[in-house]
């Protein structure tokens, strides 16, 4: 939202005046017809709540057993970042770093940026300017893809199910919870900051959200 309360569609650049939306109601751009806002069902603190929940769930997801597999008496317990270590040791370091970033570090950084953006006070270590923070969050959003990792694990478990004994650990469920929190927070964030611009920390936008 620009300073005079007008919204710019990020896809076509058309400016709109702000309108009030009921929960669930969508506003479409008059020029390109893309959805530019949806009335929030979560309330103004929804993003903050889900972002904090995601951050909390990320801790047990990283330290508790993710998946264990057994074959002929050998049992191997994997943590979230075991695949990073295996790829790193196998000489595929660029791939290891990519997996670590997209599956672990960037989702946490994205959730942290959402917390900093929606927290009532400035969070130390993050930019003061909400517009700068919003741009950071937008940039991180494209690379925070824990839901793809969850699907990959489910595919792998289905594939391995007939070959080895597989047990899903609590770390995986915590990771799923983190992923769900991130998706909900991200959707609410998208609908608020569709212009990628600034939003005053203390006030709520007039149009959607």
């Amino acid at each position, binding site marked *: 939202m620009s300073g005079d309360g007008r919204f710019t569609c990020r896809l076509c650049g058309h400016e709109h005046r702000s309108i009030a939306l009921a929960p669930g109601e969508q506003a479409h751009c008059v020029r390109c017809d893309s959805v530019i806002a949806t009335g929030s069902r979560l309330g103004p603190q929804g993003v903050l709540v889900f972002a904090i929940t995601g951050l909390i769930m990320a801790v047990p997801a990283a330290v508790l057993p993710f998946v264990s597999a057994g074959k002929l008496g050998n049992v191997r317990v994997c943590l979230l970042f075991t*695949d990073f270590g295996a790829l790193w040791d196998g000489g595929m370091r660029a*791939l290891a770093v990519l997996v670590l970033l997209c599956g672990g570090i960037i989702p946490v950084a994205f959730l942290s940026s959402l917390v900093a953006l929606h927290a009532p006070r400035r969070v130390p270590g993050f930019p003061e300017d909400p517009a700068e923070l919003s741009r950071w969050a937008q940039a991180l959003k494209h690379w925070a893809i824990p839901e*793809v990792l969850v699907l990959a694990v489910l595919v792998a478990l289905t594939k391995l199910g007939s070959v080895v004994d597989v047990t899903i650990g609590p770390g995986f469920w915590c990771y799923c919870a983190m992923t769900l929190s991130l998706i909900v927070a991200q959707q609410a964030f998208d609908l608020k900051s569709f212009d990628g611009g600034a939003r005053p920390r203390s006030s709520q936008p007039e149009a959607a959200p």
Partner: protein
Amino acid sequence: MNTSALASAFKGRAAAGALSVAAAVMLVPANLLPVLSTESSGRERDDTIFSGVVELWRHNLGPIAVIIFGASIVIPVLKLAGLACLIYGARPGGRPDARKLTHLYGALDFIGRWSMLDVFLAAFLTGLVQFGEFSTVQARSGIVAFAAAVVLTVLATQAFDPRTLWHETPAASDDTPER
């Protein structure tokens, strides 16, 4: 360099085109080289993306084969074709159907991430299946090329500015969003 300056350095039709070409080049080794090597009871087997899909299909894992085929073969190709349409449509002097291409951009922006499925799958299997002489899985160079192709297509989509499709189109007179 702040984020907006960094973003603008990698923005534009030319940057999106260059990144798309690079992605297309990387898709060649990604599909020709093995992505996973499986050793089980002394027998070693290398699989490319396509042979892995065929193998899944043969083992009655049709739904998984379809998911992998879609995420690893169909989506990257569709995404490159879509980017080519966008880049061509946004050429100077072009008269693109801006509304359709904007919807295409939104779709490409959404589906791109799902191509990372095969990268995560290979990484997860490499970490989990390490049973010494009984069974091991190792990632191979094809998956690195595939990951590079996926990253490049995502960067190409980010580099393309959909607002350039609307330069030749007059702005709508109404400024009230439709409900």
